[in-house]
Structures are given as structure tokens and as C-alpha cells.
């Protein structure tokens, strides 16, 4: 593997050297997050942060796949948008209780991800990326054309009952309360991923990513673990999509388009895929900057393109790599 790609995809093995600072910072950030609704932000900014949580989940899913399996998916919008669409479609076309819908949608997306993984794992590298793009885009086209069910380009509004999980639906649609819910889910997901990556399964999947043949020669099945990684990464993206649907109450085919998948990859890389929390950081930075930039320029897309190129070439470990190394340096100076 080339140096740059290694830096982008290598799981952080040096995390044990200065665990305390990073963990302390992580706990501080997580706790600070819970205080955000009371920090006096404007309603629109708070709403932005709430949306950013869903994007962060999408990016975390994509980044996890890169880190744990060395695969770059250009089709994760399928899980994100697919789950969102499923929530809305089920709410509109069936009489299922809201709780069942919200729980079922990401589960279906995950199972689909697992099933499709076996097909997709017949390819690797760039072919995998292109296949993921095609499969996701096929879903996009399906939703665009199936006007009877999904209303095509105009999109569809969610029709959930007023009560959900013992509280009112509006709790999920107000920035303050929804931010807390989304942030909680994001934090829990990252914690679970961290535990997973330190487990035997985590070690095995890194081994398979490094050297699939050798993993087989020491006695392991390699297909199922890889499919599971794809499924987990899809599940995380699907969670983001569910939150998106709940919060916005509306879906349009744009959330299935490959450009969203591309955006997710860019966010994950800018944030840094070496760590599990990098993509989430990237998401918040991206979403906030995009909003700010909108006031100054119409060329956000060019900026993104330039930043992507810069990060890939000059800063392959992304923002999270920068943060980690800076912390290490500060820690060493104070100790």
C-alpha cells in the first residue's frame, strides 16, 4: 500500500501512547455537547448542528468502512437516504406504529447492506467503489421514477402520529431536543465502535484488510467478517438517515444521489479515517463552514474540491490526525 493511502486508512495503533489526554478531551467534548442547547446559539445555528449530527453519522459509517475494511464506498447515500425514505414511505403507506417504523427502517437497511455485501465483495479497490456507486444510483433512479409510491423529484412528507416513544413527535422536530437525541446517538455509536475495534472482531477485520490471504491461512473465514463490517457501516449511516427523516419530516431523492455519497467520503477523509471519531469532526466542520461560506461565496464546491485535494496530498491523516498529534506534543511538553 502506498504511504499516503496507508496514512488515510491505517487504524490508529498509537492511541495507547497518550490515552489520557485524548480520552479526557473526548469526554469533555461529549459532555459539552449535552450542554449545547443552553449555550445561547441562535435557533438556526442549533438546527444546523442538529442536521450535522445526522451527517456525522453518515460520515462515520463511511469512514468506518475505510478504516476497518480498506474499502471506499461511493454509495452510502443508499443506506442513509434509503432508511430515511423507508421511514417516510412506511409512515405514509402503512398503518404501522411510529415506534416500529423508526426501529424497523435502519434494521432493514442494515440487513440489505449485509446481503448486498456478498455481491459487492466480489470486487475490490476502485471496482468496489464503482459498484457501490452503481447500486446506490439504481436506488436513486428507482425512487425518482416510482412516482406512485415516492412522488419522484418532489419528494414526500412523513406522516407519523403525534406520539412517539411516549413523547410528542415535536420533540424530534425541535432543534434543542432533537440535538440532544442525535448527539446521544452519535456519542453512543462512537463509543460502541471504539469497543468493537478493540475486540477480537476488530483485530480480525484489520488483519483481513491488511492481508486477506494470510488471514485465511491462519484459519479464519474472511468473507463474513468483511460483510459484517459493511453491514455495520451501513447501519450507522442508516441511523443518520432515520434521524434525518424524523427531524425534517420530508425526503427528496437528493438524499439518495451519489453526490451525497461523494460528500460523505470527502467529509470522512477531511476529518480523517484513522480514528473512529475523525469523520464526525469532519462533518461538523464541513456543515458549519458550508453555512458560513454561503454568506461570502457561491463557490463552495470548488473550495471543497481544493480542500479534498489538499488533504489527500498533504494531510492524509485529516483533521483528527492533526488534533491527535498536536495533543501528543502538548502532553509531552507538560509531562
Amino acid at each position, binding site marked *: 500500500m502506498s504511504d499516503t493511502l496507508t496514512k488515510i486508512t491505517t487504524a490508529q495503533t498509537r492511541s495507547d501512547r497518550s490515552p489520557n489526554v485524548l480520552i479526557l478531551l473526548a469526554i469533555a467534548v461529549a459532555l459539552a455537547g449535552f450542554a449545547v442547547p443552553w449555550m445561547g446559539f441562535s435557533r438556526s445555528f442549533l438546527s444546523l448542528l442538529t442536521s450535522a449530527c445526522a451527517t456525522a453519522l453518515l460520515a462515520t459509517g463511511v469512514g468506518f468502512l475505510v478504516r476497518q475494511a480498506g474499502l471506499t464506498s461511493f454509495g452510502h447515500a443508499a443506506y442513509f437516504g434509503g432508511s430515511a425514505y423507508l421511514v417516510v414511505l412506511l409512515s405514509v403507506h402503512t398503518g404501522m406504529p411510529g415506534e416500529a417504523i423508526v426501529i424497523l427502517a435502519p434494521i432493514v437497511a442494515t440487513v440489505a447492506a449485509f446481503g448486498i455485501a456478498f455481491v459487492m465483495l466480489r470486487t475490490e479497490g476502485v471496482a468496489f467503489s464503482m459498484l457501490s456507486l452503481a447500486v446506490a444510483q439504481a436506488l436513486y433512479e428507482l425512487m425518482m421514477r416510482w412516482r406512485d409510491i415516492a412522488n419522484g423529484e418532489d419528494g414526500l412528507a412523513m406522516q407519523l402520529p403525534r406520539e412517539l416513544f411516549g413523547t410528542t413527535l415535536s420533540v424530534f422536530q425541535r432543534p434543542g431536543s432533537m440535538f440532544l437525541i442525535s448527539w446521544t446517538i452519535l456519542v453512543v455509536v462512537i463509543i460502541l465502535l471504539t469497543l468493537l475495534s478493540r475486540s477480537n472482531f476488530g483485530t480480525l477485520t484489520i488483519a483481513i484488510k491488511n492481508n486477506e490471504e*494470510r488471514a485465511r491461512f*491462519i484459519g*479464519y473465514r474472511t468473507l463474513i467478517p468483511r460483510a459484517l463490517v459493511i453491514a455495520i457501516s451501513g447501519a450507522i449511516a442508516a441511523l443518520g438517515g432515520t434521524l434525518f427523516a424524523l427531524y425534517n419530516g420530508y425526503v427528496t431523492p437528493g438524499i439518495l444521489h451519489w453526490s451525497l455519497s461523494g460528500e460523505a467520503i470527502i467529509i470522512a477523509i477531511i476529518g480523517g479515517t484513522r480514528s473512529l471519531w475523525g469523520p464526525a469532526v469532519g462533518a461538523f466542520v464541513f456543515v458549519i463552514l458550508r453555512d458560513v461560506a454561503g454568506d461570502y461565496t457561491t463557490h463552495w464546491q470548488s473550495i471543497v474540491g481544493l480542500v479534498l485535494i489538499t488533504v489527500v496530498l498533504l494531510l492524509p491523516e485529516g483533521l483528527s490526525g492533526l488534533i491527535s498529534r498536536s495533543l501528543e506534543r502538548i502532553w509531552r511538553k507538560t509531562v
Partner: protein
Amino acid sequence: MTGTIMLEATGLTRHFGGFCALNNVNLSVRKGEIRGLIGSNGAGKSTCMDVLTGRGRNLQGKIVLDGHDISKLSERERRRAGMARSFQKTNIFPELKIREQVMLAARMAETDNTDEILSELSLDTIADQPGSEVSYGDQRRVDLALALVGKPKVLLLDEPAAGLTIEESLTMARHLKSLSDRHSLTVLIVEHDMEVIFSVCDNLTVLHLGEVLTEGQPEAVRSDPEVVRAYLGSTFA
């Protein structure tokens, strides 16, 4: 040499298109024996190794390991049955720490003797470093450790001394010999390095152009005129 036959291979054959790389090779190794598989370049040694371990396609032949027919098993299943191998080109896991990867291999095998293997191969001092950050010689030993850990029934080593300095090769040979004596391992070792072969092997099988030329104890094979002829030009004698 007495003892049960641990590995019995008959009719090992492999074609690459029209070219026959291995032709009807028979091999029989007893428990506790260290068998060297030698031959000039192109003799079919690596192919033999691949056929035995199930690496690749179009492999023919019957392979019996400790009484079990493993001919139809995949590489993964063969490892579970007790056949472990190391590789000519270093084939380890760059991101995992050395202890982590050896433990990973141990988990799939019979017993977890990770610490024992790490210390016997002098890897305990670097056990917490990732595979990509250790020297080539260390990586070769990690490759060996991955195969050795878990007490496999048969150990197939593909040029373990490749790329090592003379000193490193001899050290490795010493490791092998002592490990084998201590655990009475059954080993099949493919090697070019004759120093290693002679310091370690109980018996030799000589391959030439895909077929077995002769077999026997090292000294006898060394002075066999046919073998000398086949090896003309090499640093054999």
C-alpha cells in the same frame, strides 16, 4: 526413522496452461521429522508447497494429514486440520502489533502458546510494535511465529531464510532446530540455503523439473551423482 506418518501426499500435480509444473509427486513425512525439499530453480518446490496447502487452482493429488484426507479442504480448513505454513515473501499484518497478530493466529489453533513462541523467536522485546515498523529479519520471524503458534501438526516453511543475512539464517536455523526438538514438530522446509538445510533436516527430497529425483539422508543425497548433475553450476557441493 520410525514413527507414524504425519503427512502423506500422493500424485501431486499442477499444470499452468500447457506447462506441467509438478508431475505426480509423492511425499511421505513422519511425525517429528524435518524434511527438506530442495531443487534448482523451476524444480517445482514452491508449486509443491502451494498444492499441499491448497493455494491456487488446478491442484491435483491426494493429501492425508494425520490420517485425515484434506485434499478437498480450503486453506482455511487445512489450517484448522493442523497444517500451517509460512511464506517466501513476507506475509504478515502491518497494522497489527506483533503480539496481537500472533495471538490472532493462536486463537484459531489448538492452544494459546503465544508468549512461549514470542520468547523462543526473540520477538518478546518488540511484541508491542506494529508489523510495519520492525526490521525485515524480525518480520520473517513473525511470519514464522504466525505459522508455529498453536502447535500445528505439520509445519510447511517456504524459504524461511529468504532475504536474511548469513548470521540471521543460522540463528533462524538454530531456532527451528531447538523448537522442533522440544515440541517434536513435523516440518517440511523448502529452502535454497544449503547451510540451513544441512543444519536442520533429517531427510531430503530432491525435486527436478517437477518430479522427485531422489530422497534420502542429507549426506547421501549430497554425494549422489545424479543430484550433482542436476545441480550443475549451483553452490551445492
